[in-house]
C-alpha cells in the first residue's frame, strides 16, 4: 500500500473531477485498457473525484468521448510536478545541495580533540604528543590510525600515563587517559646529586649510591649537597683515578622548623547567613548577558556562589554559558572574645599556618609558642613547629661542566690509609 503511494508520488499523478452518467462503463473500459484508478469518491450528483497517473491521464481522453464524460483537472501531484516548480528556484536547490555536501564533506574530518583524565600532563602537552603521533585537528577520518594503536602510541610517548583510550565519535576524538599515581622518576642513568630542599638538622641518612657529604647531626642549609653523585675513582697504588659520575640515591631525613603567625581580634564582625536565598540565572554570550528571570537581588548584604554550564547541542559546544548564581543573604554579627579565648584560637591558627608545609606522611613533632603580643584589640601569636621531613631532592648535573673535583668528598679513611 505504502509502496504504491510512493510509486505514485514519484511518477506524478493528477486528481480529476469526473462528470459522467456511465461510471460503470468507464471503469470497465479503464480496467480493460489497464488504466489504474485510485481514490475514487462520489462528490456530487453524477460527479466523482479520482486520481490517475499522468500517463494514464492521456490515455483516458478517448474513453471520455466514448462515454460522454467530462473531466476537470483539480490538481497535479507528485515529484515531477514539484521538480517543475522548483526548476525556477534552482539557486535555492543548489544552495541546499551545496550546504548538505559541505556538511558531509566536513564531517569526514576530525575537528575536535577532547582530552580528559589528565592532571600533571597539560592538555597542550598531550595534544603535542598526539601531533607527533600524526593526529591533529583537521585530520581525515580515514587516515586516522586504529584507536588501540593510537592509545598504545600515546602510552609509549608519555611515560607518566598508565592507561589511555581513544574513542572516535563523529568529528570528535575523545582521548581518556589515566596517569600513574606518581609520575615516573626520570632515568637513573643521568648523574645527579641529592640536595637539601630546606634548612634543617640531619636525623637519619641512608646512602644507596653516591658519596655522603654530611653526617647525622649536621646542620644543613637549603641547596646544600647531601649525597654527591661524584665517586672518587680508586686508581692503582693509592693514586686517585678518574671520578665516576652516578645518580645519587638514598634517604635523608632532617628535623626542620616552620614558623606560623596568626592574629585574632577580641571584637570581630562576622557574616552570618540568614537562610534566605535568591537564585539568578542568565545566559552569557561573550560579554553580553541575557537575563533569565528577575536579576534584582532583594538583599542588601549577600554572598554569591556561581555555577557555569557551557551550552551544548549534541557534539557541538556553543559559545554560550548558562550561569546560575545563588545569592545568600547574610547579616553582620559581632563576636566578643576574652583574652584567653583569643589567645587559644590564635595559637591554634598559628600552628595550622605553620603546618601547611608539612606533607601528609611527615610528622609534626613539637609545637612551641615563640611570642605572644596582646594589643588593645587583638592577640597576635607566633609559633614554631618542628617536623621530621624527607629533605633530599635530586639535582642533575652535566659531568663535563662540573667544577668540583672528586677529591672534595672524603667519605672514609680507607683511601688515605698508609
Amino acid at each position: 500500500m505504502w509502496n504504491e503511494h510512493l510509486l505514485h508520488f514519484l511518477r506524478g499523478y493528477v486528481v480529476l473531477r469526473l462528470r459522467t452518467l456511465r461510471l460503470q462503463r468507464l471503469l470497465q473500459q479503464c480496467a480493460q485498457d489497464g488504466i489504474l484508478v485510485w481514490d475514487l469518491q462520489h462528490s456530487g450528483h453524477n460527479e466523482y473525484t479520482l486520481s490517475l497517473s499522468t500517463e494514464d491521464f492521456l490515455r483516458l481522453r478517448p474513453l471520455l468521448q466514448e462515454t460522454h464524460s467530462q473531466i476537470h483537472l483539480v490538481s497535479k501531484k507528485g515529484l515531477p510536478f514539484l521538480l517543475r516548480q522548483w526548476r525556477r528556484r534552482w539557486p535555492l536547490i543548489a544552495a541546499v545541495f551545496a550546504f548538505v555536501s559541505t556538511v558531509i564533506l566536513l564531517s569526514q574530518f576530525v575537528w575536535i580533540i577532547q582530552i580528559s583524565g589528565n592532571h600533571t600532563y597539560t592538555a597542550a602537552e598531550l595534544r603535542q604528543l598526539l601531533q607527533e603521533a600524526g593526529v591533529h585537528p583537521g585530520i581525515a577520518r580515514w587516515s586516522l590510525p586504529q584507536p588501540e594503536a593510537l592509545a598504545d602510541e600515546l602510552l609509549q610517548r608519555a611515560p607518566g600515563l598508565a592507561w589511555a583510550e581513544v574513542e572516535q565519535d563523529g568529528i570528535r576524538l575523545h582521548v581518556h587517559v589515566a596517569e600513574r599515581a606518581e609520575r615516573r622518576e626520570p632515568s637513573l642513568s643521568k648523574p645527579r646529586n641529592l640536595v637539601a630542599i630546606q634548612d634543617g638538622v640531619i636525623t637519619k641518612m641512608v646512602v644507596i649510591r653516591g658519596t655522603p657529604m654530611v653526617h647525622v647531626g649536621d646542620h644543613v642549609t637549603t641547596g646544600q649537597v647531601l649525597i654527591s653523585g661524584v665517586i672518587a675513582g680508586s686508581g692503582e697504588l693509592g693514586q686517585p683515578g678518574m671520578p665516576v659520575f652516578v645518580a645519587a640515591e638514598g634517604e635523608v631525613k632532617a628535623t626542620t622548623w616552620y614558623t606560623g603567625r596568626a592574629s585574632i581580634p577580641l571584637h570581630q564582625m562576622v557574616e552570618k547567613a540568614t537562610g534566605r536565598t535568591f537564585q539568578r540565572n542568565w545566559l552569557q554570550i561573550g560579554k553580553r548577558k541575557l537575563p533569565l528571570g528577575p536579576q534584582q537581588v532583594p538583599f542588601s548584604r549577600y554572598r554569591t556562589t556561581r555555577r557555569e554550564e557551557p551550552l551544548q547541542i549534541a557534539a557541538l559546544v556553543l559559545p554560550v554559558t548558562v550561569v546560575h548564581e545563588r545569592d545568600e543573604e547574610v547579616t553582620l554579627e559581632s563576636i566578643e572574645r576574652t583574652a584567653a579565648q583569643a589567645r587559644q584560637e590564635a595559637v591554634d591558627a598559628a600552628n595550622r599556618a605553620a603546618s601547611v608545609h608539612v606533607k601528609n606522611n611527615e610528622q609534626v613533632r613539637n609545637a612551641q609558642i615563640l611570642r605572644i603580643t596582646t594589643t588593645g584589640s587583638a592577640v597576635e601569636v607566633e609559633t614554631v613547629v618542628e617536623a621530621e621531613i624527607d629533605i633530599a631532592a635530586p639535582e642533575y648535573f652535566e659531568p663535563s661542566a662540573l667544577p668540583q673535583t672528586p677529591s672534595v668528598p672524603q667519605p672514609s679513611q680507607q683511601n688515605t690509609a698508609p
Partner: protein
Amino acid sequence: MPKKPNPSGLPRWQERLVTAAQRLDLPEDTWVDLPRVYLYGKHHVLIENHRGVLEVAPDRLRVAVTGGEIIVEAAHLIVRYILPDEILADGEISKVIYQ
C-alpha cells in the same frame, strides 16, 4: 426443458466442481472464480475476483461478482484502488450484502 436456476447462480458445471471440491475438502475458491471479501476491522473492505464496479455513492458501493453483486454500505465511502481482480474501499462500514 428450461434450465433450473441454481441457488448460487453459478453454471451447472461450476456447481458440480464446487460440490466436488467440498467433498475433497479443498477450498472452493481455488477452483472457481468465486468472489472473496475481506473485512479489515470496520474501515477497510477488500473484494477479490470482482467483475467491475457498478456504482459508487457516498454511502454505498456496488461491485459485480460472479453470480450476483456485493453491496457495501458505509459512511464516507472512498474507493482506494481498482485493480483488475481486486478492489479496496475505505469508510465506516455498516453492512456487506451479497445478493
